[in-house]
């Protein structure tokens, strides 16, 4: 398998803080890849750089052969990368179906309803989106991203703050999309059971650098990963 999404030596600083430091990551076509790392390791910043919400100071982002470094968010979206956010960005005062009709790529109500059915919230289509539970909002965001039929889907903490039943539903939808349409996923998640169970490959960020990547069982026992999570002892 070849890399569909690739970052090469991305560096990004905010003031004096280097959030990404020579960050190189490969996401294979048709894979579900996990991106983990302790708080502040740069996961969301990397998502922001890939999707055009933050500009890289150095390095490059490729989608297939195409360089998309520092493209605007709409260009990245149109190029085939959809994403969700840690804190869902829905329109609470619109109905669930109306939310689905916002993206320019929406193919009409019927298509929107199909996506809502797929994620399992079609029954709520005429409810205001603001009345959905947190987990349902995450599902709405996933449906919203699917409208554009992106090649690569970036999910930022899809299971964060979601009840266990809906976590299972979210995982099942991701697996099905990957299996039936070969969509490629890159998933940031702190819920280790979720990410380790879902992803064939997991990359680990620490201080803005990918320090390890591989199958979950190898990652769990990798000393570099343990160092990232447990911290390095301070000679106090």
């Amino acid at each position, binding site marked *: 398998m070849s890399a569909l999404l690739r970052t090469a030596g991305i560096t990004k600083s905010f003031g004096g803080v280097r959030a990404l430091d020579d960050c190189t990551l490969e996401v294979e076509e048709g894979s579900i890849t996990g991106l983990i790392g302790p708080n502040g390791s740069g996961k969301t910043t990397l998502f922001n750089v890939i999707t055009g919400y933050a500009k890289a100071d150095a390095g490059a982002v490729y989608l297939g052969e195409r360089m998309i470094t520092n493209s605007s968010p709409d260009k990245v979206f149109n190029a085939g990368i959809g994403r969700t956010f840690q804190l869902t960005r829905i329109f609470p005062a619109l109905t669930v179906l109306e939310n689905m009709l916002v993206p320019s790529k929406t193919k009409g109500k019927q298509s929107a309803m199909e996506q809502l059915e797929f994620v399992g919230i079609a029954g709520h289509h005429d409810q205001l989106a603001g009345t959905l539970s947190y987990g349902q909002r995450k599902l709405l965001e996933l449906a919203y991203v699917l409208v554009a039929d992106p090649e690569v889907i970036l999910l930022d903490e899809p299971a964060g703050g979601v009840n266990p039943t809906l976590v299972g539903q979210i995982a099942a939808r991701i697996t099905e999309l990957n299996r039936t349409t070969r969509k490629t996923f890159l998933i940031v998640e702190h819920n280790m059971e979720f990410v380790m169970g879902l992803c064939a490959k997991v990359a680990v960020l620490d201080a803005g650098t990918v320090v390890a990547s591989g199958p979950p069982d190898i990652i*769990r026992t990798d000393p570099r990963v343990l160092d990232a999570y*447990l*911290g390095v*002892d301070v000679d106090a």
Partner: protein
Amino acid sequence: MTGSETTGRSVLQVDELTAGYGGGDVLRGVTLEVPPGGITCVVGPNGAGKSTLMRCVSGLLRPRIGSITLHGEPLAGKSPREILRLGVVQVPQNHSLFRDMTVWENVELGGYTIGDKKVLAKRIDTVFELFPQIAQWRTQKAGSLSGGQQRLVEFARALMLEPTLLLLDEPSMGLAPKILKTVFDAVRQMNSAGTTILLVEQNARAGLRLSSHGVVMENGQVRLSGTGREVLEHPEIGALYLGGASR
């Protein structure tokens, strides 16, 4: 090592605590104790409930079930101000100094509830004796200090009330690795001077290494407890962070 053994002589005793926000529980039956004179360090992965535990102890969040006692006195229903008066002082995770005020003014504010000016002056002297470097910065604006220096001033401010129990919520958060030693040294120094400390820390190895007691929380529950060293060297600690721990 379990999370349910208690001695009854502790400074703080947390029993079967269940608490959360909105409809969900973040803490699910947490039992732990903070013995006198030591440093008790709570570690655990993101979302384990560490900061929620701190909020319950300081009175910022009211638990649904369970009890918290300080030297045997129940804290249930008490406001943060009342809990502060009982001697529980918290240094929050985010920097909390008044940036436009001097270091001296910030430290002095820690003794805001002390009416007697002589006592206040004596406390400042004691705190500056413990942290002489802070005395050197006394006329500087707090906002001009580095993150590590601000953390020390926050410690000094907290000591102004001679706390029965000092709560430190992730003091190493956001600090450069080379600054960590200074901060952890200061934690040890405060403890050596007699302050009992409940420390929540993201750097598990460094936190547990300097602590007399350690607790690992995961998913709202206490999963390991023992001496700092026992917890640090427990074979399951990595699995509690990265998944795959036995239930």
